[in-house]
Each structure stands twice: as structure tokens, then as C-alpha cells.
């Protein structure tokens, strides 16, 4: 059990951690989260005494960590950092057995442990042990980073945004692996992130911090359902939005890059433009950018006369919706009217975008499978 008791940390006169009290139980996966500068990393690094605190005490299993030699303390606590920090001059095997070696394990025991650990993440010993970190991908490197932390079987692992620098797909699979590992090994894990999705996925308990204080410490479910502070709701906001399609508005599902032409354009000019941009329809706006209607290439062919302004032939009955319309209603309208697209308007009648089947599919896909960009 780790207990923070009235911990205060100052840099000069600036209070970084303000009278923090927190208890972390054995085998618990605790995620520290909050905006930048909230003190989450500081809180983490106090446990292995990488950062000193000014007041208060931290106990690990009833032992005040001040009474333990810092070097020995750190050998009993696994540590994983965002920059991975594998030693480039050491092989994978040497990297993993850094702490066992410091603890003077026998050579055989070290090798056995490395084999065991590499197996745990499906990296065969023979192929990987003698490689150097720069021969591995970022994701593999961080797997080794996690193994290094596990090597000497410490009961506590500290992780400082360990997956922050990885691409989303790798991050996702490493999160899964970590969760599985945790369930297998029952370590106490303290994990810092600023990604609420990651926190919800991994944590038994989320500790939300702001300005050096704990705003709420609760299970992910409880935090999602009953956020104790508006700032937490804001952090959760994106998450709850991406979880239900019901809250989507037209703004979320429309295509924003659109092409408009002023109504004073002449027909021939307009045809030239459409050829250039490979469009068969353009949106017509007035001098103030307000929506007027649409013009299609067929329309111009049929009714257009050279030298005439396109305002004369603008089709004004194209259905449009307001930007804050619920996406579902807009989609229903699109299907009902059997048209290819709806024009999405801002409140002031300027054009915000268009709603097409493609834009909707893209937006829904990102809700289901996550943002692509």
C-alpha cells in the first residue's frame, strides 16, 4: 500500500503539490490524469524519490520512504518513461536485466528471467535478446521498457506517459497487453497520462488532478457518470461524445471543405471554374457570403446563356439544414428527400459545409473506430 500523507511540494514559492493525501492499494491500477502542470508526474516521481517533496510523508507498506536509501528504493520499484530510455549501448537482454544485475542476481537467473519476460510479450528470446534497441520499432522498444521495469519483480511499477509517443494503433495494443499483464501479475501500477480514453481503459481508479490537488479519485465508471468537477466533465467530454452517436450534430458529420461561387459570376466563367475543380455542382452565395442556392453543370447547359450572371439560373430549392441540427435528423432528411446532399448553413445563413453520404460515413467511422487523423 502506498500512502501520501499531507504532501506539499514547492518550487521557490510556487506550490506544485498542495497538501496531497492519497492511498493506493496493493494490486491497484491507478491512473493519474489532469491538464499539463497539474502535478501528476511530480506525484508519480515522488514515489521513487526522483523528485523531493517539502512537507508530508509517503509510506510504502508502512515504511516511510525517507528512511530508505533512494538507490535501493528505486531497485524495488519499476519505472517506465515516455522517452522509453532503453540504453542504446546495451543489448535487449542487457537492458532487461539492468536491475537484476544491480541486485547481483546470478547469471543463470538473469537469463532465465529475460527469457520468461520476452515470452510474456511474444518476442522470441533467440531472435531478440542480442539485438540493440535501435533495431526495434518504437512499440517493441517500449515493450522492452515495460519488461525492464518488471524484471526484478518489483511489486510497484511507475509509468510516466509510457505510450504517449507511440502511434495510435501500437498504443492501443500495448494498452491491451499492459492490462492483461496487470491481471496476470497483480502489480500495483501507477500510470500518468493526459488521455482520458487511456485512463478509462486501463484504470481501476482514476485520480484526477488539477493545480496540485486531487479533484476526484474514483473508478472510471463513477467518474464518467458523476464527474465531481466541471473540468473533469470537460476532460470526459470528448470521450462521452465519441461514445454515442446521439450527440452528433451536422457540424460533426459534414464536409467542411467546399467550393462556393459568388452569384455575380458569369456562366462561362463558372463552367471554366467547375472544369478546373472537377465539380459538377457549386454552391452560389451573395456578396455577403450568404447562401443563395446551387448551380449544376446540367442547369447551365440547359438554361445558361453566355455572359449572363449565374444568379439567374441558380436553383434555390436545394434542401438545407442548420449546422446545429442533430445529425440523425439530418441523415433522415437526406434519405427521405432522396437527394445527394444537403447544404449546411450557419445561423447567419452563410454556408458551413455540405452533408453527403461520404462525409457521414467518414464521420461515423471515426466514432466507431476512432479519429484517423
Amino acid at each position, binding site marked *: 500500500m502506498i500512502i501520501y500523507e499531507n504532501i506539499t511540494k514547492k518550487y521557490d514559492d510556487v506550490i506544485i503539490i498542495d497538501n496531497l493525501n492519497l492511498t493506493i492499494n496493493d494490486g491497484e491500477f491507478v491512473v493519474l490524469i489532469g491538464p499539463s502542470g497539474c502535478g501528476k508526474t511530480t506525484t508519480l516521481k515522488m514515489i521513487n524519490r526522483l523528485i523531493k517533496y517539502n512537507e508530508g510523508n509517503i509510506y510504502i507498506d508502512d515504511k516511510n520512504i525517507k528512511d530508505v536509501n533512494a538507490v535501493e528504493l528505486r531497485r524495488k520499484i519499476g519505472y517506465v518513461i515516455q522517452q522509453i530510455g532503453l540504453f542504446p*549501448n546495451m543489448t535487449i537482454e542487457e537492458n532487461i536485466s539492468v536491475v537484476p544485475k544491480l541486485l547481483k542476481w546470478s547469471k543463470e537467473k538473469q537469463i532465465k528471467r529475460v527469457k520468461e519476460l520476452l515470452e510474456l510479450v511474444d518476442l522470441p528470446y533467440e531472435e531478440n535478446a542480442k539485438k540493440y534497441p535501435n533495431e526495434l520499432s518504437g512499440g517493441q522498444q517500449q515493450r522492452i521498457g515495460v519488461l525492464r521495469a518488471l524484471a526484478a519483480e518489483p511489486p510497484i511499477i511507475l509509468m510516466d506517459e509510457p505510450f504517449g509517443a507511440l502511434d495510435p494503433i501500437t498504443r492501443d495494443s500495448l494498452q491491451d497487453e499492459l492490462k492483461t499483464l496487470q491481471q496476470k501479475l497483480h502489480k500495483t501500477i501507477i500510470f500518468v497520462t493526459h488521455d482520458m480514453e487511456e485512463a478509462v481503459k486501463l484504470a481501476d481508479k482514476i485520480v484526477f488532478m488539477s493545480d496540485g490537488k486531487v479533484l476526484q479519485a474514483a473508478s472510471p465508471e463513477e467518474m464518467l457518470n458523476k464527474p465531481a468537477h466541471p473540468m473533469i466533465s470537460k476532460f470526459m467530454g470528448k470521450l462521452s461524445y465519441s461514445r454515442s452517436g446521439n450527440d452528433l450534430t451536422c457540424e460533426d458529420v459534414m464536409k467542411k471543405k467546399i467550393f462556393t461561387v459568388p452569384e455575380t459570376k458569369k456562366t462561362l466563367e463558372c463552367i471554366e471554374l467547375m472544369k478546373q475543380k472537377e465539380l459538377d455542382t457549386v454552391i452560389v452565395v451573395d456578396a455577403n457570403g450568404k447562401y443563395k442556392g446551387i448551380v449544376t453543370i446540367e442547369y447551365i447547359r440547359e438554361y445558361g446563356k453566355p455572359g449572363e450572371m449565374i444568379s439567374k439560373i441558380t436553383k434555390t430549392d436545394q434542401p438545407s439544414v442548420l449546422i446545429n441540427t442533430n445529425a440523425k435528423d439530418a441523415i433522415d432528411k437526406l434519405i427521405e428527400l432522396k437527394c445527394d446532399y444537403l447544404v449546411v448553413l450557419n445561423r447567419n445563413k452563410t454556408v458551413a459545409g455540405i452533408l453527403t453520404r461520404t462525409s457521414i460515413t467518414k464521420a461515423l467511422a471515426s466514432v466507431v473506430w476512432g479519429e484517423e487523423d
Partner: protein
Amino acid sequence: MRIITKFFENYGEMLVKAILTHLQYVFISVGLGFIIALILGIALSRLPKFSNIIITIIGIFQTVPGLVFIGILFIYLGMKPITVITALTIYAIFPILKNTYTGILDVDKSLIEAAKGCGMTKTQILFKVELPLAMNSIFSGLRMSTIYTVSWAVLTAMIGLGGLGEFVYRGIETNNQSLIIGGALPSAILAMTLGYIIDKIQNKVTPKGLKGSE
């Protein structure tokens, strides 16, 4: 061709002796310089506060022409090999010192943090992480020092202590071109050979994991 054979007939023995003396000066000075520079460089990297001042002071020493420096030392220490070795050692220190210091300081801070987090002591961090990673830089400094020292050692002849410089000085005094070349060419070859040997050693001591990434 005949000139060359004649040169070797006349001066061959003297040349071998000069090369050996020259090498002796280089090895002793660079060796001493290396040890001093390494220790100083490590010490400076622990105290980055003072490093600027110290590096500046040594840099100023560096700008004093070797000729002047050996001359001054000659007055105090006399015509002894110690004079030459002191001067050459001081000149040899600087490139190694600077490269040791920057090599250690350039080690990624996150690696130091990882090492600390693993429970390494400061000494362990130095020997297991910082020095291995600074090795490349340190050896570049050593290479530079060695090559410089070979050419500076030519000046030892100025105070009559032998080495390849003797050929050059005698050549100048007697207006004998082949003597000048006979001293200059071997020192150039010596510098290049030593540089090459150090490259090879550098390649050996550079951690494998660092080679691919450069």
C-alpha cells in the same frame, strides 16, 4: 630516386631514431593528456556551473603559440624532456577534455533519468551509461589531440631535444631542402597513421548499438 636512396644512406639511422623520439613524446604526452583530460572532463560534467570558466581558461592557454609556450617552459624547466612533455601534454588535454565534457553532457537526459529510476548509483550511471555513450566523442578528441601533438612535437627540436623537428631545423639552417622534406613527410605520415589506428580503436570501443544509428 637516387636522391631518396642517398638520403636514406646518409640519414637513415638518424631518421629512425628521430621517429622513435618523436613517437615517444607523442605517446607520453597524449597518454598523460588523455588521463588528465578524462578525469577533468568527468569532473567538469559533474559541475557544469564551473565548466564554462575552466574551458575558457584552457582555451586561452590553447591560443598561446606552442613556440612561445615551449620557450617559456624552457626558461623555467631547462633543456629537459620534461619541458617538452609538459607543453605537449597541456596542448593534448584540451580537445579530449572538451569532447569528454560535451560527450557526457550530450547524453540524452531521459537515459539518465531511466538509469536513476532503475536504481543505478551516480558512479554506475557514469560507467554504464554516460562514458559508453560519450566514447565516440572522447575518441574524436583523442584523434584530434594525437594528430596535433605529432605536429607540435616538431617544435621540440627548437630546444635541441630531437624528434623529426631536428631535420626541419637543420634543413632550414643549412638550406637543405631534402632534410626539410625528410622531417616533414614522416611527421605527416606519422600523424595519418596514428589517426588511422585511433579510428580503428574507436570503432572497437564504440558500443555496437550506436553504430547503426549514426
